[in-house]
């Protein structure tokens, strides 16, 4: 991933955030990633923005099943049970 072995640019960091948050970055890249955050406030804020984005998406309420759709399914279930 990294162009040089000892350094990531900000532009490289922003492409690795999902892998980093999923803990699927190879150890060497994770270490370069964290080293970068140690000296780059902009990327710390960026990672925080993406993390906040994920949390905010998680706040979207999944819609509930409409009552009539549920009734239809329960009806289908009773038919299935009888068969």
């Amino acid at each position, binding site marked *: 991933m990294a162009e040089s072995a000892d350094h990531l640019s900000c*532009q490289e960091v*922003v492409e690795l955030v999902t892998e980093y948050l999923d803990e699927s970055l190879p150890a060497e890249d994770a270490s370069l990633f964290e080293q970068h955050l140690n000296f780059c406030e902009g990327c710390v804020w960026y990672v925080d*923005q993406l993390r906040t984005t*994920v949390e905010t*998406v998680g706040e979207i309420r999944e819609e509930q*099943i409409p009552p009539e759709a*549920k009734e239809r399914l329960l009806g289908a279930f009773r038919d*299935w*049970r009888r068969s």
Partner: protein
Amino acid sequence: MAPAQAHPRSAPSASEEADLVARLRGGDERAFEALVERHYATMLAVARGYVRTRAVAEEVVQEAWLGVLNGIDRFEGRSSLKTWIMRIVVNIAITRGERETRTIPFSAFAPEADEPAVDPDRFRDESDGFPGHWRAYPGSWASLPEDTLLVRETLDVVKRAIEELPAAQRIVVTMRDVAGCSAEEVCETLDVSEGNQRVLLHRARSRVRSALERHLDG
């Protein structure tokens, strides 16, 4: 820095799931109802990626539940029950989508062209010293008032951004970040590789972040 928190709606254990399957096979209506309530929204979101309208997606989900009931005796537990159910949704949705000629081409889950997470213009170029570094830092959202992100207006921005995503990105981010599916569940359900799943998720999150940034900083 701590990794993202696991989704609060955690997966049932293997023994809970075996119990649920047994109750379902035995005709326990409460078990069926609980399963419907738990998975309906995710099924609908997955189906919507493949068919044109919400009404058709609802039909796909209804049909999928019949498939679940008729197939439950053959469920062997090789994948989780949830993944098995979602696979049924995908198969029915693909059939419906083909009939409507709006199926997601198989290759849609293989990301094609490069899509940078952040507009390249926001980084310094070669002539600039420190190429690839921010021209101007993104804003700190830590200083926003606590509830800014949770107000309805902000959540509407996020919802709209998700609706506008390309279908494959929308399905993946909905499964992972709205419904709380694991990466593995997404890969198995959509028959997509781990790497492609991650790329689609990353692009989707990056686009939603941009929309939020325009809303919050704009």
